[in-house]
């Protein structure tokens, strides 16, 4: 079921929560609405569901305006952040609730409930009450309940925020698998960029009630439309530079620029993986000291300090780290392979600049 938002605005008591937002979700997509808290993403989701009415603009489902269709008639499945299970009903009764309302025959109802219990791995829990379930189990029941009446659209509000990291990972994978299997148009809200990148095939980034960018995870990561997006998605080093003689300078670092007058200030951004580090002090022209190493699993994050006091973050694999024989406090040489000039927020960013010709993929590329 395709969904289209046209110039949607929502005000609460004169304050705009959502401002002139337009985007389209094609049938069968799995879309993330991403942004920091208070950016309006949940309000957008609630307007799509019909729980909230837009102040202005149109919401179209399959090309038909649904602004005036009440939530009960929109045939959506909604999963709430706090699960919102009916605590006086067993797991099976929770799942059957929507079917009961839609007056399914008893045999069909029982079959559908059994199907969902199977699909979501709730087998031995059918007779339990919500308070007897763990967080992850509750969320699966909430999903089953939302999916039971075969909704046209599945909407999820921060679905995995309240469970611990391991369960969250399982639930993410489950959502992807479910979407693959059922192919129902799915929109979920998250403030976690990693989650958005991992789960969705399209990301809609919000910033202060406005649409900041819409694109595939790769597009949003590699071609951020604004400094906000660049900083919000993934880690980015952002340096405040001053242009002198056509070169943006910040501490020891220099970034050649074109067509920028001397004396102007520019913001330069580069991802940690674009920093190339060597233990050979002759290898690159900049020197820095490895101040601290953060262990992230397969990857390590390095904090590098220049003699001027400027600190940047780099990223490398465990193997690379061992090969270079690095330790905290050690002096290294480095270069920055790619960077981009960050325009003011809202302006389209200029393309990324490669400093050297491609040296082949470096460890940690694409992260």
């Amino acid at each position, binding site marked *: 079921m395709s969904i289209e938002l046209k110039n949607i605005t929502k005000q609460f008591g004169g304050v705009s929560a959502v401002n002139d937002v337009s985007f389209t979700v094609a049938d069968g997509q799995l879309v993330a609405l991403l942004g920091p808290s208070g950016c309006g993403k949940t309000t957008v989701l609630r307007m799509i*569901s*019909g*729980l909230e009415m837009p102040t202005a603009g149109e919401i179209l489902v399959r090309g038909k305006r649904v602004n005036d269709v009440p*939530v*009960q*008639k929109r*045939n*959506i*499945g*909604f999963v*709430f*952040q*706090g*699960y*919102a*299970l*009916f*605590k*006086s*009903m067993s797991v099976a009764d929770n799942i059957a*609730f*929507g079917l009961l*309302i*839609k007056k399914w025959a008893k045999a069909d109802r029982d079959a559908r409930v059994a199907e969902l219990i199977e699909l979501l791995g709730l087998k031995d829990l059918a007779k339990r*009450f*919500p*308070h007897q379930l763990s967080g992850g189990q509750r969320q699966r029941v*909430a999903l089953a*309940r*939302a999916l039971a*009446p075969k909704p046209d659209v599945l909407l999820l509000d921060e679905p995995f925020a309240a469970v611990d990291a391991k369960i969250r990972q399982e639930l993410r994978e489950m959502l992807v698998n479910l979407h693959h299997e059922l192919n129902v148009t799915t929109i979920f809200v998250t403030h976690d960029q990693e989650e958005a990148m991992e789960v969705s095939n399209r990301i809609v980034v919000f910033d202060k009630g406005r649409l900041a960018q819409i694109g595939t995870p790769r597009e949003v990561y590699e071609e951020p439309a604004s400094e906000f997006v660049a900083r919000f998605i993934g880690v980015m080093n952002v340096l405040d530079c001053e242009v002198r003689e056509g070169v943006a300078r910040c501490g020891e670092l220099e970034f050649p620029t074109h067509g920028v007058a001397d004396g102007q200030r520019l913001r330069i951004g580069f991802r940690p993986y674009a920093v190339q580090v060597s233990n050979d002090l002759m290898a690159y022209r900049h020197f820095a000291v490895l101040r601290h190493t953060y262990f992230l699993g397969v990857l390590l994050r390095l904090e590098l300090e220049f003699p001027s006091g400027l600190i940047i973050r780099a990223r490398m694999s465990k193997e690379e780290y061992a090969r270079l024989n690095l330790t905290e406090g050690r002096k290294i040489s480095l270069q920055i392979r790619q960077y981009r000039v960050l325009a003011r927020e809202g302006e389209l960013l200029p393309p990324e600049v490669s400093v050297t010709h491609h040296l082949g993929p470096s460890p940690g590329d694409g992260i």
Partner: protein
Amino acid sequence: MAEKRYRVLPGFGLTMGFTLFYLSVLVLVPIGGLFLRTFSLSWADFWRLATTDRALAAYQLTFGASLAAAVINAVFGTLLAWVLVRYDFPGRRFIDALVDFPFALPTAVAGLTLANLFSANGWLGQFLVPLGIKGAFTPLGVVIALTFVGMPFVVRTLQPVLEHLDRDVEEAAATLGAGRLRTFVSVIAPTLLPPVMTGFALAFARAIGEYGSVVFISGNLPMKTEIAPYLIVIRLEEYDYTGAMALAVVLLVISFALLGVINVLEQWANRFSR
């Protein structure tokens, strides 16, 4: 070696001992004394004293009117609590404070006021009596007085529960296609039933024991508007202590049994959260 868990407050033994002592002094000893006094009677004498026609009429009125008052309170108290929690309107805090009024007001004053209101030439009585609604000196008056004193119990029991009611749950029901009535009946009511029953039980218990407000509005006509606690007082005034004891024991046993039943029902209604 026995495991010893660290506790913030010292000693289970001490607190349990205090609990038992406190309960004994305030509850068990007086009740025990009451039963002991009645044991001085033979069973036949007890039965004769406890089941006079006048006494039976008084039990009927006490329990009937208390039940009616508790039911009224359960329904309208719930409504009142709902309005106070869910809506914001000018004067809400004032009304909220008024709910406690029956707690604070001496019940005799309440009874006198109500009797004046509902008597044939009272503010309300002058309109109601011509319509055949006699609020003073009738069983209806007893129900009115008992409703008045029991009201805060339901409201105050329900308010915190309503405040913690999850709004998401109502929205979830809506997204699944449920209208307001369906949402209320299927989703909200079952979760409210246990606290409503608790409030009902408290209001009911209070009504059974109520004396002050009723004596003024009921008129205390034997066999008609005389409540059991009043009959006990009459027996006492007649220096008929054993007669009073017999009535009191009946009242106590029935109350205890009824509260027991309500408790079981309450646990059943709350089965989903245990």
